[in-house]
């Protein structure tokens, strides 16, 4: 079968051509000059998210979320596993890249006022995604169980614990008990690799659907012309 025939076969059975038309063949307003590159920030964030998912899944293969073994298993990844140091490095730097790209993407939308009618819902889902990224970074930071991880999480949770009225309860919920330890690690791990990815995937789906459905916002022009 020629590639053409394969494509036709698949289209007839899955409607792939219509998906292609809706996602890829759709037209977008023209953006001239360097402004056009700002529109790549969203997809760049999506790319790094995928990168984090792939490297994260690989890391999870050799990681134990327990104070007894976490540190040793992370050391094991770095010293014994082929490309382990590289994959962990990608995940580590990818986390920072994620925060930078989400921030830049938000700034693009903010300064272009792309959150305005009819894209308000897209913006709200986007802000939700931003908080989810922060959640990823906070929960992921603890997992290597080294000094930096331990003390940064200690500071973070004790700040939450100082909230008036609900603070003490909040800190216990975060820590999974009165003190930071085994229950904290499993809790953060479950959030980091199960809960947050699932919620993020759902929110990401909604965000992308809205982007395609409304069409990407046009580069803003000076003053209102016509109409």
């Amino acid at each position, binding site marked *: 079968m020629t590639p053409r025939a394969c494509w036709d076969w698949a289209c007839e059975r899955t409607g792939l051509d219509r998906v292609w038309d809706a996602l890829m063949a759709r037209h977008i307003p023209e953006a001239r000059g360097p402004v056009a590159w700002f529109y790549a920030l969203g997809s760049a964030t999506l790319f790094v998210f995928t990168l984090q998912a792939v490297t994260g899944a690989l890391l999870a293969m050799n990681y134990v979320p327990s104070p007894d073994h976490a540190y*040793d298993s992370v050391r094991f990844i770095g010293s*014994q*596993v082929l490309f382990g140091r*590289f*994959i962990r490095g990608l995940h580590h730097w990818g986390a920072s890249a994620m925060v930078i790209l989400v921030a830049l993407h938000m700034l693009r939308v903010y300064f272009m006022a792309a959150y305005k009618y009819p894209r308000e819902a897209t913006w709200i889902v986007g802000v939700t995604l931003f908080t989810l990224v922060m959640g990823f970074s906070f929960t992921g930071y603890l997992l290597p169980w080294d000094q930096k991880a331990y003390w940064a999480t200690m500071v973070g949770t004790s700040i939450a614990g100082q909230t008036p009225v609900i603070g003490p309860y909040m800190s216990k919920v975060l820590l999974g008990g009165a003190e930071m330890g085994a229950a904290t690690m499993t809790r953060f791990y479950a959030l980091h690799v199960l809960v947050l990815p699932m919620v993020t995937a759902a929110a990401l789906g909604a965000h992308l659907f809205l982007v395609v459905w409304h069409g990407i916002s046009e580069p803003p022009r000076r003053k209102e012309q016509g109409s």
Partner: protein
Amino acid sequence: MTENGSPEEGLSRRGFLTWAIAGLGAFIAAALGATGTGYFISPAFGKREEDWVDLGLAKGFKQNEPLKVDFVERKRDAWATVERRSSAWVVTPNGREFVAFNPRCTHLGCPYRWSSEKKEFLCPCHTAVFDIDGRVVSGPPPRPLDRFPTKVVGGRLLIQPAASKEAA
């Protein structure tokens, strides 16, 4: 819809861009795929660590009198160190060469014992009988007793319990 110019020109430009995307995509996939796949399949090429366990002075074993030696096997299991209580039947015909048998019957893994009256290894589960060299005398076992590699270093008997070998 195409750039200014004739439709053919636009089409060839489109084709070029498509190839550029495919090329870049292939680059990304290759970089991630190579390292990621390497990471994933690397256990296939890992070497088994040689863990030798010290069973004590070689002189301590009497000739032609099998002795069950208990030992603690310490193994590096990825990032963890695990301890396993284990044992071996040690036989020496001359005090220089040693044979260490896996203490499990090759039939269904029951622990067997040495009968000093009959000079045979007897398995209680299905009445299997092995001679002093581990050969099957009678009963259902499919093969002779499994052996651990042995060596004598500095007058001490060492065995390698992780590498239980099927006797030829």
